[in-house]
């Protein structure tokens, strides 16, 4: 792994003190699904943060928070917080990258302090893959033929990661793109769901998210979907963990239903953005 010599690196053998935490009765290794389920949900079917299994966390959206960017958005989904800035369309710098259609350039970055484990300043493998997933999802939504030979940059910075970062990033990026007046077929709404053997948890937090572990005796997985509600199209689909196709069908149903509920919220936010923009333009004209 190449390291940036200009940055101060910790000693190579440094590790997070959280690993020294005492775990009860070798817990993690021997957790069976039944116990796991008990850990995440109590007997009244209420999750640790007082949600029902099919409830999502409260959502907060705001546009126009980066003055330098063409469009920007901020999303808060419980404790998952991230910003997105959209720049362009601008001319493609490298001649070799020339393409007749417009191009999207996506960068997904976790702030070094955003996760429990410290992340490096350089994009790691996971971030690269998330960038790719984001680009593939947005490419399906953006009318690329409207800005030929140009590129639009979409930068995501995760400030705090408390589960489902890709889902939040999809919603945030499509809102930022829309607020930057980039022509799109539809808004993309992201949503995630965690599958336990007999239970589905919508919009999982970090603790509820699926972690690769041994000895999982039954089906356990995580699914993130990017959905375009008015077009009824799925533009991102990432599933990790073990499931049957029938279970995946059910998970998909829950997720798309949730997306349909979120769509008006995002549209409202967008409407307010446009109204604000028109109002400020009106003021400018009056001043002249």
């Amino acid at each position, binding site marked *: 792994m190449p390291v940036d010599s200009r940055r101060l690196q910790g000693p190579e053998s440094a590790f997070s003190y959280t690993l020294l935490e005492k775990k009860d009765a070798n817990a993690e290794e021997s957790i069976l699904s039944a116990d796991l389920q008990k850990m995440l949900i109590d007997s009244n079917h209420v999750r640790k943060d007082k949600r029902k299994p099919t409830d999502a966390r409260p959502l907060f959206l705001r546009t126009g928070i980066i003055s330098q960017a063409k469009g920007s958005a901020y999303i808060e989904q419980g404790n998952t917080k991230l910003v997105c800035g959209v720049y362009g369309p601008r001319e493609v710098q490298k001649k070799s990258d020339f393409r007749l259609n417009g191009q999207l350039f996506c960068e997904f970055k976790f702030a070094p302090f955003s996760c429990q484990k410290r992340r490096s300043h350089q994009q790691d493998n*996971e971030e*690269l893959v998330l960038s*790719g997933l984001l680009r593939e999802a947005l490419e399906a939504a953006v009318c690329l033929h409207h800005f030929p030979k140009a590129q639009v940059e979409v930068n995501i910075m995760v400030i705090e990661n408390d589960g489902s970062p890709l889902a939040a990033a999809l919603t945030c990026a499509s809102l930022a793109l829309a607020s930057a007046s980039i022509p799109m077929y539809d808004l993309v709404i992201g949503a995630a769901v965690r599958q336990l053997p007999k239970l589905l948890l919508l919009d999982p937090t970090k603790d509820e998210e699926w972690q*690769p572990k041994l000895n999982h005796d039954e089906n356990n997985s995580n699914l993130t979907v990017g959905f375009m509600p008015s077009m009824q199209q*799925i533009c991102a689909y990432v599933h990790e963990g073990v499931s*049957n196709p029938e279970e995946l069908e059910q998970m998909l149903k829950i997720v798309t239903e949730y997306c349909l509920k979120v769509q008006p919220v995002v549209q409202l936010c967008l409407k307010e953005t446009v109204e604000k923009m028109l109002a400020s333009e009106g003021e400018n004209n009056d001043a002249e």
Partner: protein
Amino acid sequence: MSIAPQLLRGPSLMAEILLSEAEKAFIHHGDDLRCDGRTRLDYRPIILETGLVSNASGSSRLRLANSDVLVGVKVELASPLSEKPLEGRLEFFVDCSANATPEFEGRGGEDLANEICRFLQMSYMSGDTINLSELSVLAGQQCWVLYVDILILECGGNLYDTVSLAVKSALYTTQIPSIKVATMDGDQPELELSEDPYDTKRLNTQNVPCLVTLMKIGNHYLVDPTPEEECCSSSGVVVAVSGSKKITAVRKIGSGSLHPESLVSMLKTASEVGAVVNKILMKKLLEEETAGKTQKVGFMR
């Protein structure tokens, strides 16, 4: 002039696949019959041989029509990750060399290689597929690391499936030497390697997943797309299906989108197809093993 969607993000020098309107129309609207005479759910012929690389602990070469992949597995001792002290690990590395196709020139293949690596990692992660605790030598101190190096020799479409089948076969043949903790000298354990080179163990690869790529073209979807079919399609899914017919990872590929209904039906088909592919592969591997020493064919042939 169209370009295979998987290669879209490569730099300049695209080897464009030239397709006439009539060819495109056939691929889009043809009945359950494809240009090479297959039906939509048929694979192209596969050639598989294991144990070709003498210096590797396990190796395989797989050719699926024009896609040619060579996989070598090296086992090495290392200290386990601090967050998983009781497990060994698998490390994947895909090399998309410029030899395979001009798109991979320079850094062109890097993104694709990265994607394949990450997807393999993702699909091998769940406890159902491979038992990583078998790779632990001394809890918290020493474990086996399996370096799975994948060399793409020729690129003729459907890389995900080709790579996964080759990796599974290579892991099937991988020999892990027996090692014993002889004495504990203070804090330092002394490891003793068995003197008999044939005293090895093998991993249980029964449940290791195979990847199945389904490409959506027109109103249909098909398995094992040729490069021509890949460039007629804007989206598809890669599904990892374990030996027990369960899905261990899915992701959408390409820059298009899919309707939920067609996605669900694709997932169902993929799990059926994957189970069959898995079964046949295991059968063939067993056949090769029991056939004993036969003349090796070798790679690049």
